């Protein structure tokens, strides 16, 4: 028996994590209880795309959409909706802007945002069945035009619609038609430009394949309006299916008398021929296209005369793009005014966009003009795969430009895009994530243009060649700043002096990437570094390039594979003196770029690192060779990862280094913030102890400003000072009640816990914030016996600035995370507990960071009673607390002035790094900062050294056969303790086995190996 209703439950990844499974079992139970299992189907589906309000449920046949459904709601839905037919309003989706309740799935933005006019028949009718086109209202517009209208009325209707050319330039279609209609000539032509050359645009192909009759009808209407009886469709040879279907459609139209003589018994005759392109991008330019139809080389000519006066075979001609023509029948049938209701003042109607690149829902969407770019990419496109970071979107192909995250709110119109240095073009949107190098992208487009330049004019032919050479030089790491200047100069010249649109717009990708991503050009030129890991001549291997400290990953994996663990560790210690620490806490920048990810998944680098690090208690014999003492003294302030790393490298270079530390023990945040269930104290102590044996002197319980000032240290003979005291100033919300007992700053709480204090937190603990510190606070609170620990974060899971694995682990241990809420006030309750007032938020417009900014929902306050509130919203550096005397010259407007790359400051003998410079970051970034500062200090104190050992990479001395077949193997997994074992403060993760380490290392594709 067929079911009378269907309950669709979203089982997309996000909904599952918000509880689809338990909702499903609740529904199963309720349906069984009411004997409805035969009548009602319970169906789990893929992602419905409304992840923010999951778990979501749709009930058919009505299409009612429920959001945030909890197991307890199943009873009400079954009893009210399915039994009595009354919908449950309480669970309706609320429209973010208005709070309007929306019940039907078609009413929701995700589905409603699209408005299909040009694509009205695509995916609906059989494209090669003319009858289905007619059944959907096809050829009615042509019939009405021919029998009920005058040509001038048709032109007027198109002018009223405000339709602009969808091929790129956006010239008003009605004006084009009017100009051609006014010309007096026996012969005129209508040409459909289907030479869809912009890489990344495929709406024309889709229209020709999916609804060819709409193009034929649009062309015939145009022919009637301007007095032409011959049309040409110029299609790319790369679209065989489009050509085939269009040919069938033309023949069918001829058979029915919709093309040919005296159509609809009028005096109007019209026919269409197809002309196939032959692979020349420039033929998309209208004058070049006409030359190509004439059988010539597709070279452009100067305008005027415009095609409307002197076009194909020197006759008046209208050239329209496929999408433009597909809109015409709708405009004639429904009236220009109806069409003009959509869109913005100057950009009317809808536009089809092709979504491609790094976006989840690749494909075609048609939306009213003026929709924000971010909405197209995130609401319709579904965001970026694998939750990678959005970087930019390229619009308009090789003639267009890119739009970075800070402009995601821009409404997409013909006027707004040029202001950002882009153009509408044909509407191809290539979405790019963090793995795209913008210099390489500019190089790619320049290669395209240089190849496609027809050669007729010099600026384009020669200029694009030279620009390509310069870009190749930059990508290869051989360019200077002079090259960049030449590139910019040429870009401007080529744009101003080229003959046709192709040449004039050729420099756009360069100018646009320079405008928004100049720093990437500078990285390539000055640091010979491609952060995206694309420009391969500058990298040893993608993972090495991605690691802030440039640890030679493939080398130590190569040794590990063969069980040569000492050699592996020796390689590691060249670039990072903390193998066991990083084997536990490293966020693994390397694996993000791991090529093995294209197969089964990236290498479990951290697991191997931990294995080889933990093998040895004393590994001093594996350190790089220490140079002879050079007699120079350097002071390091702060014994965190940056300070210790800097001291380590300087000692190896022969310096006499003392590290001054305020706390009783060395380690900084590794000791006093990262909890010991993630990083046991003895592991850290081991690595620091090895360094001390090497010669790093550490003086603890030493406070700068109290025991001595930096000026005192200078007087004591320290020739340079490296400051890395972290980001010590806790940021606190500006709300009432933060001084109440039971309210604690997050880092203070972590520090006290790390010092071994047992803190009474009570049963109910609320943690405010979304970063690592918030997660650590919540898990520590659990370990102090709290029963209900809730993290409150004002954005959503996607925006949390912490590793998703950390969130998952916290949740496994029972921590609850609530999103889109924030603390606005704290009061004391009558019984001595705390009352936290929370306000609800929703996601609003895109902010500068490319994330949707949370905005308050009015009147949504809610009080909660808790025992402890931990405030972990962030912390920042406090340079004033350390720098005094002339060292204060390094502070400007309360902020330290220091280079993130070299650690240098305006004060000659002062260097700085780590969180003290960049704010909260990771251990590996701090280690890298120490490394860079050691180099800067050495360059200043003993100039002349040419090479630093950590900047030199070698292949491991092991067998490697690049020709050997790769056998599939899944990454090794970390053995973990279960949730109950964990709460007794021991390390949650375990070390992998020897076999596991060797096998995992063997998965490395050895990208360092070059034939």
């Amino acid at each position, binding site marked *: 028996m067929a079911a009378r209703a269907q309950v669709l439950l979203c089982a997309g990844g996000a909904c599952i994590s918000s509880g689809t499974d338990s909702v499903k079992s609740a529904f199963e139970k309720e349906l069984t209880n009411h004997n409805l299992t035969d009548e009602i189907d319970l169906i789990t589906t893929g992602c419905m795309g409304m992840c923010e309000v999951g778990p979501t449920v749709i009930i058919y046949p009505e299409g009612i959409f429920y959001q945030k459904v909890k197991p307890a709601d199943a009873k009400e839905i079954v009893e009210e909706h399915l039994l009595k037919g009354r919908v449950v309003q309480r669970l309706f989706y609320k429209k973010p802007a208005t709070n309007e309740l929306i019940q039907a799935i078609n009413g929701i933005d995700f589905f409603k945002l699209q408005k299909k006019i040009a694509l009205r028949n695509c*995916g609906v009718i059989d494209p090669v069945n003319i009858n289905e086109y007619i*059944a959907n209202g096809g050829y009615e517009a042509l*019939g009405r035009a021919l029998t009920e209208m005058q040509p001038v009325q048709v032109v007027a209707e198109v002018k009223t619609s405000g339709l602009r050319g969808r091929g790129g330039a956006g010239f008003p279609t009605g004006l084009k038609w009017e100009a051609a209609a006014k010309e007096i000539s026996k012969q005129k032509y209508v040409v459909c430009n289907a030479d869809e050359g912009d890489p990344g645009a495929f709406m024309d*192909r*889709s229209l020709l394949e999916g609804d060819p009759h709409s193009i034929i009808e649009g062309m015939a209407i145009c022919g009637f309006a301007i007095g032409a009886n011959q049309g040409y469709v110029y299609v790319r040879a790369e679209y065989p299916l489009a050509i085939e279907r269009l040919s069938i459609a033309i023949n069918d139209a001829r058979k029915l008398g919709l093309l040919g003589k005296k159509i609809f018994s009028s005096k109007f005759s019209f026919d269409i021929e197809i002309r196939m392109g032959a692979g020349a991008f420039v033929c998309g330019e209208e004058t070049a296209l006409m030359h190509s139809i004439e059988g010539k080389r597709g070279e452009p000519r100067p305008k005027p005369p415009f095609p409307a006066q002197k076009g194909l075979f020197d006759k008046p001609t209208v050239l329209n793009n496929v999408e433009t023509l597909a809109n015409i029948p709708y405009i004639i049938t429904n009236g220009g005014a109806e069409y003009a209701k959509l869109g913005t003042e100057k950009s009317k109607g809808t536009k089809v966009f092709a979504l491609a690149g790094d976006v989840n829902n690749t494909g075609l969407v048609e939306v009213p003009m003026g929709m924000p770019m971010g909405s197209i990419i995130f609401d319709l496109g579904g965001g970026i795969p694998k939750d990678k970071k959005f970087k930019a979107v390229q619009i308009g192909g090789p003639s267009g430009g890119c739009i970075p995250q800070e402009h995601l709110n821009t409404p997409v119109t013909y006027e707004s895009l040029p202001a950002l240095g882009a153009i509408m073009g044909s509407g191809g949107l290539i979405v790019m994530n963090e793995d795209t190098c913008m210099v390489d992208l500019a190089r790619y487009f320049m290669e395209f243009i240089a190849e496609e330049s027809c050669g007729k004019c010099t600026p384009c032919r020669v200029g694009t060649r030279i620009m390509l050479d310069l870009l190749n030089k930059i990508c290869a790491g051989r360019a200077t700043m002079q090259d960049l200047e030449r590139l910019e100069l040429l870009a401007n010249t080529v744009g101003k002096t080229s003959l046709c649109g192709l040449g004039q717009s050729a420099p756009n990708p360069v100018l646009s990437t320079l405008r928004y991503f100049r720093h990437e050009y500078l990285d390539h030129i000055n640091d010979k570094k491609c952060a995206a890991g694309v420009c391969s001549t500058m990298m040893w291997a993608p993972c090495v390039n991605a690691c802030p400290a440039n640890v030679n990953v493939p080398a130590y994996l190569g040794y590990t594979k063969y069980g040569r663990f000492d050699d592996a560790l020796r390689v590691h210690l060249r670039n990072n003196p903390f193998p066991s620490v990083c084997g536990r806490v490293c966020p693994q920048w390397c694996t993000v770029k791991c090529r093995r990810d294209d197969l089964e998944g990236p290498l479990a680098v951290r697991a191997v690192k931990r294995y080889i690090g933990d093998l040895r208690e004393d590994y001093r014999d594996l350190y790089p060779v220490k140079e002879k003492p050079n007699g120079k003294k350097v002071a390091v302030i702060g014994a965190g990862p940056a300070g210790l790393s800097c001291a380590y490298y300087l000692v190896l270079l022969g310096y006499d280094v003392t590290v001054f530390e305020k706390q009783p023990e060395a380690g900084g945040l590794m000791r006093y913030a990262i909890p010991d269930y993630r990083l046991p104290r003895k592991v850290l102590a081991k690595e620091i102890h090895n360094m001390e044996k090497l010669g790093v002197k550490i003086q603890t319980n030493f406070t700068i400003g109290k025991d001595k000032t930096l000026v005192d240290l200078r007087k004591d003979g320290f020739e340079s000072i490296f400051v890395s005291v972290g980001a010590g100033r806790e940021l606190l919300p500006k709300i009432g009640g933060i001084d109440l007992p039971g309210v604690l700053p997050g880092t203070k709480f972590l520090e006290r816990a790390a010092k071994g204090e047992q803190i009474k937190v009570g049963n109910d603990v609320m943690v405010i914030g979304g970063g690592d510190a918030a997660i650590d606070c919540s898990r520590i609170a659990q370990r102090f016996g709290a029963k209900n620990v809730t993290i409150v974060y004002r954005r959503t899971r996607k925006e949390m600035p912490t590793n998703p694995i950390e969130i998952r682990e916290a949740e496994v241990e029972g921590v609850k995370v609530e999103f889109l809420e924030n603390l606005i006030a704290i009061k004391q309750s009558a019984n001595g507990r705390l009352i936290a007032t929370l306000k609800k938020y929703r996601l609003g417009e895109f902010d500068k960071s490319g994330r949707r900014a949370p905005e308050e929902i009015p009147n949504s306050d809610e009080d909660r009673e808790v025992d402890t509130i931990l405030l972990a919203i962030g912390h920042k550096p406090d340079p004033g607390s350390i720098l005094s005397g002339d060292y204060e010259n390094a502070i400007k407007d309360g902020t330290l002035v220091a280079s993130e790359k070299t650690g240098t400051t305006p004060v000659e003998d002062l260097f700085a790094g780590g969180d003290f410079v960049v704010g909260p970051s990771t251990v590996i970034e701090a280690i890298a900062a120490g490394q860079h500062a050691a180099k800067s200090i050495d360059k200043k104190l003993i100039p002349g050294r040419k090479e630093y050992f950590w900047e030199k990479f070698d292949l491991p001395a092991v067998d490697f056969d690049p020709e050997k077949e790769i056998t599939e193997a899944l990454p090794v997994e970390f053995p973990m303790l279960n949730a109950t074992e964990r709460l007794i403060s021991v390390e949650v993760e375990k070390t992998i086995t020897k076999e596991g380490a060797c096998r995992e290392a063997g998965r490395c594709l050895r990208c360092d190996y070059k034939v």
Partner: protein
Amino acid sequence: MKSLDELRKIKEDVKKSMEMRSGGQRVKVVIGMGTCGIAAGARDTMKAFMETLDAEKLSDVAVTATGCAGFCEREPVVDVEVHGQKPVRYAKVDGEAVKKIVKQHIIGGNVVQELVFA
């Protein structure tokens, strides 16, 4: 084509015959056959439908093609419309999926949950 009336007559006739067809044909299967669909294997999907329907000796199912509906990522996309019910859209329909859709949905009357496009 002589007149608008002639066109409208075709329109009505086709509409009627399309309705009659879905009256006679209990089920309509529409396969997305744009370049994306075909590249993702829509031709094999179409073939699999023909073969499976043949093997199951079903003669009341009409199989037709349409263009790209814009969901290139999830091609081949197939709409299955059982007469009198809302059409169900399936995504990434391969040979195995076709067998399931025919057996479970077209014959059995139950939507194949895991394949539903949503």
